[in-house]
C-alpha cells in the first residue's frame, strides 16, 4: 500500500479550560493532498499533533487505515506516518546525510547497519527536495530553508504512506516553496499539511479545511470554499477571490483596510 486512509473523528483537545481543537472531523482519502488553513492560533498545529501522536485527543479518534493511531506502538505508527514538525533543533554535529538517515530508524532492527537500499532511499529523498549537494554538510550550519528541505527529505526517507507537515514552506524561498509543494503533490502518499499561504494551498491541495478557533468552519475543494465572505469571517479582512487565468485555481487578493470614514 502506498497511501493511507486517514480519518479524524470528532477530535477535541483542551489545554486547561481552553479548547485548542473542538470536535473536528476530517478525512483524507488515499493519495489526496489535504490542506489545513486558518489564522494563527486556530488549532492547525494542535490538530496535526493529534495525528502524528504527540498530543492525545481528549475525545474523538484518529484512525489510520481504519485503526486507532493512538493504540499502535509509536514505532509501528512511524512506519506509516511521517511528519515534518516545527520544533526542530540540532546543536550536535550531524551531517545532513545522517539527519536524513534518521528517517530509516523505524524500519531498522536493533544494531542493524545501513544497507545500500537505505543509502539509495536517503539519496533520492535528498534529490526530491533539491538538497543532494548538501549531503555532507553539517546540518547546524545550514540556512533555515535548507534545514527545512532536509527535514522534509528525512520524512520522505521514512517511506510513509501518510505525510503530515506543519507549515512546510516556512523559511523557504519562492522557488523552493513551489518545488517542495510540487514534489509533495506528486507523491502517491496521502498528504496532510498546514499552510499559511492561501494561494499556495488553493493551488496544490485537493481539498481544504478551514480552521477557526479550533473548529472547522468550512471544508471542500478550494474553488468552492474560498469566498470573500468566509475570509472576512475567519481572517477578519476584506479579500477579492478570482479564478486565476493561467492556473485555473482560485486566487485570493487581500484588500488593504479602508481608511476610517
Amino acid at each position, binding site marked *: 500500500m502506498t497511501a493511507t486512509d486517514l480519518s479524524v473523528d470528532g477530535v477535541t483537545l483542551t489545554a486547561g479550560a481552553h479548547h485548542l481543537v473542538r470536535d473536528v472531523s476530517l478525512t483524507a482519502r488515499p493519495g489526496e493532498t489535504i490542506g489545513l488553513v486558518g489564522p494563527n492560533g486556530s488549532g492547525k498545529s494542535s490538530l496535526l*499533533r493529534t495525528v*502524528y*501522536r*504527540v498530543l492525545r485527543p481528549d475525545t474523538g479518534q484518529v484512525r489510520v487505515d481504519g485503526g486507532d493511531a493512538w493504540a499502535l*506502538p*509509536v*514505532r*509501528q*505508527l*512511524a*512506519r506509516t*506516518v*511521517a*511528519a515534518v*514538525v516545527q*520544533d*526542530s*533543533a*540540532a*546543536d*550536535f*554535529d*550531524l*551531517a545532513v546525510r*545522517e*539527519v536524513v538517515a*534518521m*528517517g530509516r*530508524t*523505524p524500519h*531498522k532492527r*536493533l*544494531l542493524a547497519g545501513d544497507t545500500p537500499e537505505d543509502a539509495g532511499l536517503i539519496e533520492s529523498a535528498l534529490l526530491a527536495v533539491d538538497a543532494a*549537494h548538501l*549531503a*555532507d*554538510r*553539517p546540518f*547546524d*550550519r545550514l540556512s533555515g530553508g535548507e534545514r527545512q528541505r532536509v*527535514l522534509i527529505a*528525512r*520524512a520522505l526517507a*521514512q517511506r510513509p504512506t501518510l505525510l*503530515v507537515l506543519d507549515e512546510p514552506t516556512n523559511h523557504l524561498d519562492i522557488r523552493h516553496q513551489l518545488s517542495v509543494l510540487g514534489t509533495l503533490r506528486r507523491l502517491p502518499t496521502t498528504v496532510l499539511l498546514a499552510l499559511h499561504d492561501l494561494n499556495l494551498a488553493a493551488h496544490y491541495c485537493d481539498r481544504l479545511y478551514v480552521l477557526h478557533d479550533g473548529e472547522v468552519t468550512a471544508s471542500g475543494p478550494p474553488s468552492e470554499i474560498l469566498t470573500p465572505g468566509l475570509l472576512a469571517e475567519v481572517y477578519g479582512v476584506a479579500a477579492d477571490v478570482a479564478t486565476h487565468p493561467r492556473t485555473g485555481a482560485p486566487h485570493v487578493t487581500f484588500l488593504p483596510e479602508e481608511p476610517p470614514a
Partner: protein
Amino acid sequence: MTRAATGTPVERTVRRRTTGPGAGRRTRPAVTSLVLTALLLVSVTAGLAIGSVHVPPGQVWGIVTHSLGADWREPDWSRARETIVLDVRAPRVLLGAVTGAGLAVIGTALQALVRNPLAEPYLLGVSSGASLGAVSVLVFGFTLFGAASLPMAAFGGALGALLLVYATARTGGRITSSRLVLSGVAIAAMLTAVLDLLLLTTDRGNETRAVLAWTLGGLGGVGWGTLWLPSTALLLGIGVLMAQARNLNLLLAGEEAATTLGLDVARFRARLFVLLSLVTGVLVAAAGPIGFVGLMTPHIVRLFVGGDHRRVLPTAALAGAVFLVWADIAARTIAAPMEIPVGVLTALCGGPFFLWLMRRDARRGTDRGVA
C-alpha cells in the same frame, strides 16, 4: 546553489575533515579507533611503568605476558617488581581505564538524553547523589545487599539526584542550559552538604579521613577484587547504549520529531536514566566522583568522528580511558611521594573546558535559554 563556507577557517578545516565525502567518512572512525586503541595500550604500559619504582616498558610487558602464561622472555625481574606491576599498579590502571571509559559514555548519552551539551554526571549532581548513597552505607552500616550494598546505595543516590535535577530543570518540555546547570549545581551543593554533615557528625574518626579522600575521586588502593563490578557495569552500559545508538541519534532531532520517527521518548529516557544511574553508581562506588571526563570526552570525540552515536560511543569510551589513565599517572607523580586525588586534576582541566563550551554555545546561540 552556492556552497558558502561558514565559520572560522579552523572550524571549516575541522568540519571538512569530519564530514568529508564518501569513503573518507567510513574509514575515518576506523582509523580513529585504531589510533586510540594503540594509544590506550601505550597509556596502560606507561601506567604500569611509571611510579616511585620505575619499571622499563619492556619489563612491564615481560611481567604481564609472563603472568598470562606466555614465556617469550626470560624473567629478569625481582618478585617485588612483579608485585608492584601486577598487584599494585595493574588494578589501579585498569580501574582508571574502566572509569574513564564509563564516564565518557555516560556523558555522551546524558548529553543526548537531556538534549544539552553541558550535561555530565558530576555537574548534574549525579555523582554527588551516588557519593551520598555510598557514604550513608559506610556511616550507617547498612548491609541490606551484602557486599553490593555500597554500589546499590550509590545507584539509588545517583538515580534520585538525576530525577531531581531533571524535574527541576525541565519547564514546558524544554531544558535550557542555564537552568540545567543551575539545578545541577544547587542539588550537588545540597547533597554534598548533607554528605559533609554525615561525615562530621559521625564518630568514626579514622574512617572519615579515608572517606573524605574518596569523595575527591581517586583510584588509589584498589585491588583486583574491586575491578569486576565496574568492568561488568561498563560492558553492560556500552552494550545497551550501542544497541540504542540510533535512538540516541533521534533525540538530537528534538522530542516531537523523535516521536514521529518512532521513539517513545518518555519511556526511553526513563529506562536510560536508570541504566546511567546504575553505571554511575557503580563507578563512583569504586573510584569516587571524578568530574568533567564525561563532559570533555564526548565533545572532543565529536570533532573527529561527527555526532552519530554509533561512532561517538565507542570512540568516546577509548578516549575517556586514555585520558583518565594519564590523569592518574599525573596524579601520583606530580607531587610524589604525595598523591593528588585524580578528581582534582580532571576538574583543573575540565573547569576551563566547561567555560569555553559555555561561551561557544552562547556565540552559536544554542543556549535555549531564550527559547
